[in-house]
């Protein structure tokens, strides 16, 4: 990352982190696009009866803003296949790697569009609502991966995100329930997450305990403790301790009137907006400010940072606590941002998925956002396919987000380079 150059789009070449994008991989991506273009043309185009139509409903029902659009499946398939193939050829033919991922993603989007159209033949498809469904799984992942980024950019592995989620979800719900004040709930979630961030920092920075052990154990501890307290305290006093309100969606004036996407993207609750803001803030903070430069230097080469007068351990302490705080807010989103009560193990392993999103996104906020969106979209995709009754057994559909992630990571992302000092304890002398 160059200080003196504009930040490249996440995951794109333009930074030392992305050296791994080789010409061979770019050509492979191109060939893949051409292959799926052929598949789309054959399977969704040629093999579909000419009369098959799909209806695109745009906007949020029941108040559909834009008139539904009816299109021939075959037509969409052919157009998408052409687009996809053209982008593939472009990838193979051109020189240089800049923008390859963007081109590739556009190609994949074209393919997915034709696939969805085919799957929705004879019925209707609300692509915009798919976006809304995507955000559901994306939001907590964004908090989790930002938490990971905060910690790991400063050189501390935070595998405890799942635990911080649980703690934030639990305390957020409880405090919001008791006080009746949702913002206090957010604060409580943040404090709970930060507390476990602090514990991670305290044990691993001050006493040199293995960061991964501490992280794994924080997860075990938070799981056990929240389960224990749920059984002992929350359930018997459900009405007072575990019945918080939830944040209502807030429409952002003007932009929420944007046709099609407005009502979906700009009528969300505060957790979604905050996540978006945090992505930008963390990104700008890390790559444009003095604070970020110092954090990254500590994560890459703490000894070098020390020699220029940076206090390595304080930087790490601060970041790990901040990271925990972000995860704690993300945890609160599970309860007061969503269902309005805490239930055992409700985070369902998403903390680990967030970790994967962070790595997938190469320790960059926008990269992690991209990874989280991909995962969220895969979840919503499998849900749509299930509703459209494509005939794939449900467990196989449920695998889709995970299989897609593995495929993308293996085929596209390849080797990633963590901050050089990530997970390496720092001792002076």
């Amino acid at each position, binding site marked *: 990352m160059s200080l003196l150059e504009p930040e490249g789009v996440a995951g794109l070449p333009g930074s030392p982190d992305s050296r791994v994008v080789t010409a061979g991989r770019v050509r492979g991506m191109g060939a893949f696009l051409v292959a799926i273009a052929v598949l789309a043309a054959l399977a969704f185009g040629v093999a579909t009866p000419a009369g098959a139509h799909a209806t695109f409903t745009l906007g949020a029902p029941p108040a559909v803003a834009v008139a539904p659009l009816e299109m021939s499946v075959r037509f969409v398939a052919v157009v998408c296949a052409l687009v996809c193939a053209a982008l593939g050829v472009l990838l193979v033919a051109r020189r240089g790697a800049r923008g390859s991922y963007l081109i590739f993603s556009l190609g994949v989007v074209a393919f997915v569009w034709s696939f969805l159209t085919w799957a929705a033949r004879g019925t209707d498809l609300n692509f915009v609502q798919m976006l809304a469904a995507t955000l559901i799984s994306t939001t907590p992942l964004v908090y989790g991966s930002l938490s990971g980024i905060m910690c790991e950019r400063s050189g501390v592995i935070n595998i405890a995100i799942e635990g911080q989620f649980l703690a934030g979800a639990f305390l957020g719900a409880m405090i919001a329930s008791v006080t009746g004040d949702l913002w206090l709930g957010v604060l409580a979630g943040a404090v709970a997450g930060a507390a476990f961030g602090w514990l991670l920092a305290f044990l691993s920075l001050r006493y040199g305990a293995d960061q991964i052990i501490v992280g794994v154990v924080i997860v075990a501890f938070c799981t056990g403790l929240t389960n224990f307290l749920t059984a002992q305290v929350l359930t018997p006093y459900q009405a007072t301790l575990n019945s918080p309100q939830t944040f209502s969606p807030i429409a952002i004036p003007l932009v929420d009137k944007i046709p099609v996407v407005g009502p979906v993207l700009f009528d969300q609750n505060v957790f979604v907006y905050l996540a978006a803001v945090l992505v930008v803030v963390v990104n700008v903070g890390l790559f444009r400010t003095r604070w970020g430069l110092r954090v990254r230097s500590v994560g890459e080469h703490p000894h070098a940072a020390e020699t220029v007068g940076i206090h390595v351990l304080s930087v790490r302490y601060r970041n790990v606590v901040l990271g925990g705080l972000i995860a704690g807010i993300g945890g609160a989103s599970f309860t007061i941002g969503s269902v309005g009560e805490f239930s055992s193990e409700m985070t369902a392993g998403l903390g680990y998925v967030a970790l994967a999103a962070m790595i997938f996104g190469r320790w960059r906020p926008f990269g992690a956002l991209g990874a989280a969106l991909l995962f969220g979209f895969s979840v919503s995709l499998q849900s749509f396919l299930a509703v459209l009754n494509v005939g794939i057994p449900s467990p196989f559909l449920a695998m889709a987000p995970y299989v897609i992630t593995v495929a993308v990571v293996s085929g596209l992302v*390849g080797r990633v380079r963590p901050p050089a000092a990530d997970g390496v304890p720092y001792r002076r002398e």
Partner: protein
Amino acid sequence: MTPDVTPGVAAGAAGATAGGGPEPAVPARRNPLRGLVEANVVVVTALAIVSSLLIGGVLIIATSPTVLHALGRIGSSPGRALGVAGSTVGDAYAAMFTGAIVSPSGLGHAITTGHGWTAVLTPISETLVSATPLILAGLGVALGFSTGVFNIGAQGQLIAGALASLYVGFEVHLPIGIHLPLVVLAGAVGGAVAGFVPGYLKARTGAHEVITTIMMNYVFLDLLNELLATQPFQQPGQSNAISRSMPATARLPHLFGAGLRANLGFVVALALVVAAAWFMRRSTSGFAFRVIGSNPKAGRTAGIDVRKVTTAVLVMSGALAGLAGMATLSGTDFFLSSGYGGNIGFDAITVALLGRNRPVGVLLGALLFAALDVGGRNMQAATGIPLDLAFVIQAIIVFFVATPALVREVYRLRETGASLGQVLSKGWGG
């Protein structure tokens, strides 16, 4: 991290003068028990356990209505309040002990009358049963860690192993002498295949094993659900998500008679502890693994095939996790359902790190975890305190064990011998 040399300050301090000649040798390292008998480790671990129990006691008191009620009147009858608190905690831990190890009264009874030995041995037997999959999966995870591979996929590999074992179990009909070994082998192969995928992807494409193994956990969970609901795995005559049962020839025999569930699986696990210790310490492949774990570049320069090792590590790690899946299926459960495996794959990570990635350490860590599990169950039965408390205590123990400096500071101990607070995992590697 090499299991047998302690890098860093401590070892360096063993040298004397700068650039000096031969120095007093560092403590001999060939004795595998060194790390265990070292007073330091034992004391720290014991104190860690004691401290965790104390904290657990506070939690019991803080959440027990009976105690809180009594404490509410501590002004009027302080003795009684403290007594209630003490006896509540005492009862809980006593139940934990008798549930996991032995009931003293039962033992006395058995010794005097000669009857009731089964009841006396049941807690130990149950602890061994619970420990078995933890040992196996823990060995797998530890193997990965000591080679710089972070296998979070033990849970999925365990399911894969169990599925393979089950298939060979109900599909193949052979005498037990042949069938059972095949079933065991199938478990290892199933896990190995599940480990191969992330291993191969890492070696070939660089896909990060943390991502791929996390994702594969879900994939196998869903695969299990699908198979449980379809032929040939689903139990005939059932529409529930329950698998067929293992036939008698595919079951691990009991060790101490039918009354106790302890079975051959534990022996298999023990044998693999020994094998793993030998493998890491004495075999050439284990050496190559350690070299790659410590410095892959130097390993490559020295002619070790890093890709092969990376794949092999995940295959072996997966095979061990697969055996864990087999051990429970074939030892006690005999069929699969969707909750199969519980949290063993994740507990295995903690056990591996608690055992400092050494096979014997994993064995001891697994036994401790199992004892807390089994004891916690008895505690819940006897006192109504949720089992989850046992998991909280497990976690606190590991906190302390992983942070010996903290324990020493709290108890004002002097540092002797090797420092425990070392780095066992190697981060993401990349």
